[in-house]
């Protein structure tokens, strides 16, 4: 009797739990879990000349691993990985560095600290497309404010073409805009971590005669290391995801760099390349690109997890 009542309770609990979970799980399985498999299936297919254009996705031609073989020989894809890595190197360290500096400056007793905190954090919640469009204006030739400032200090190289039209400065230009936009996010995380460090730790260091620099290197940085690692992971994912800023500022250009015998876009990141393949209706190929990028993400995450495990 007792056992059966416990059983009914158990069943009722299960039913209730799944009723509460149902809306979330329905969306999760349809749009987040299933696409991981569906993407793999699509990557083995191709939109061909016989595909019914009103029903593309159920009428693609099976081509086996052809998309992946083509991908391995695609210089544009390899180049996009190079540019993505370069973008990650340009953005991640500077975003972290700037965020940490701001957090350390804000960790002083000063009038208006909360005002400064809001000012620094605000750009990171604003629309990335809009931020990119504004920076395009700031960078533009002849009338853009940055080329003009550089001109007034005797550096006139950017007056005719602006900053985004030169292959050397285009990606750093995008990166600068995004670093200034994103640093506030890191700042908030660092600030909450630094404020959790007990004052007594610093006081003990003072007694031992440590200067400000030593306190930074030996106390603050080791204690905020988890935040740094978190920001590295987030930054890596953001670089692999980077699309909007490129769409807003350069559309992958300028197309003047030569690599593996082909002309390449100086800022054509893999995320943007994937979008271009989607736009050209090469859905099978685009799915293959996303699958390879997914594998790269997994490998990087594993390496990160290893590094974290070693340090602890």
């Amino acid at each position, binding site marked *: 009797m007792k056992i059966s009542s416990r059983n009914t309770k158990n069943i009722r*609990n299960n039913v*209730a739990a799944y009723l*509460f*979970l149902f*809306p*979330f*799980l329905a*969306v*999760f399985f349809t*749009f*987040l*879990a299933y*696409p991981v498999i*569906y993407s793999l299936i*699509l990557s083995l297919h191709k939109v061909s000349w016989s595909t019914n254009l009103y029903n593309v*996705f159920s009428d693609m031609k099976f081509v086996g691993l052809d998309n992946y073989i083509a991908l391995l020989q695609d210089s544009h894809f390899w180049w996009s990985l190079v540019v993505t890595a370069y973008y990650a190197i340009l953005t991640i360290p500077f975003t972290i560095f700037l965020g940490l500096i701001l957090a350390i400056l804000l960790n*002083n007793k*000063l009038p208006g600290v909360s005002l*400064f905190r*809001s000012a*620094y954090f*605000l*750009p990171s*919640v*604003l*629309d*990335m*497309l*809009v*931020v990119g*469009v*504004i920076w395009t*204006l700031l960078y*533009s030739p*002849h*009338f853009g404010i940055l080329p003009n400032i550089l001109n007034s200090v005797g550096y006139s190289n950017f007056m005719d073409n602006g900053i985004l039209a030169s292959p050397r400065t285009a990606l750093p230009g995008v990166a600068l*805009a995004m670093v*200034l936009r994103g*640093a506030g*996010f890191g700042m*908030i*995380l660092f600030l909450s971590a630094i404020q959790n460090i007990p004052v007594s730790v610093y006081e003990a260091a003072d007694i031992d005669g440590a200067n400000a620099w030593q306190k930074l290197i030996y106390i603050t940085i080791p204690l905020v290391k*988890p*935040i740094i690692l*978190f920001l590295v992971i987030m930054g890596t*994912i953001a670089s*692999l*995801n980077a*699309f*909007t800023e490129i*769409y*807003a500022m350069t559309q992958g250009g300028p197309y003047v760099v030569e690599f593996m015998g082909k002309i390449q876009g100086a800022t054509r990141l893999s995320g943007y390349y*994937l*979008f271009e393949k*989607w736009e050209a209706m090469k*859905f099978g190929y685009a799915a293959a690109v*996303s699958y390879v990028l997914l594998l790269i*993400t*997994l490998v990087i*995450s594993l390496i990160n997890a290893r590094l974290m495990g070693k340090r602890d």
Partner: protein
Amino acid sequence: MDVKKIRERIKKILLLTMLSVGAILMLFPFFWMLFVAVKAEGHGFKLDFVMAAPLFKNFAAVWNNTAFPFSRFFMNSLFVATSGAFMTALFCSMGAYAFAKKNFVFKEVIFWMLLSTLMIPGMMYMVPQFALVTQFGWINTYKGMIIPHVANIFGLFLLRQHMETIPDALISSAEIDGANEWQIFRHIIVPLSMPIITTVFLLTFLFQWTNFLWQLVVNTPDSLKLTLPVGLALFRGQYSTQWTLLMAASAFSIIPIAVLFLALQRFFIEGLTAGAVKE
């Protein structure tokens, strides 16, 4: 006056100067946007002070533009962000309650699946999600824009973490009083989790408001459901040199979020820092 006090004073002034210079640099693009948005036609590209007359002429021109109706884009953005945020907050709270307070079969498996999906960059979902939405006939619809993103795993974890701290005694005493499952959720769990639910709501609102790629993918250019960022991108394709109008249009996207953020930043900061501390 002793030397120590003077040194403190100098340090303070130096710090404040550095912080002010930094703040001006980081906010400069937004001031510039507002400045260009109130300049006279044809002067957006020039370094002068010729202002529009009346001052907000560009805003009115963009708001009432017939080919690119930013008033319509604004309403679409507002609708998509609000309903997306509401559904996300509701679904995540319900799911989080099950995870925090109930035992069910496959709990560990589902939890593990959610956790591993968290690491996948969103860009990788573009092709398969587009294929699904196309097959459902959801192109150029609000549901196509909203529903694929309402299963917010981060939001569910954030809420679960909080709901685990609600004492079981509260739930069992309500059960004894004859409350059913939904009443327990509605009258005990939800009120006690309101700050975190608000955080999830606001973060999703922000995400939906600023989301560009998905709204671009799921709408054709002639769609009536375009949101502000997509409308701005199309507008720019047509009027790429009209910087005064472009910046006025940009301001429609930036200003509401800036106001919302400044008014409610406690919730934003709590949610964003909770995510990192968990890692």
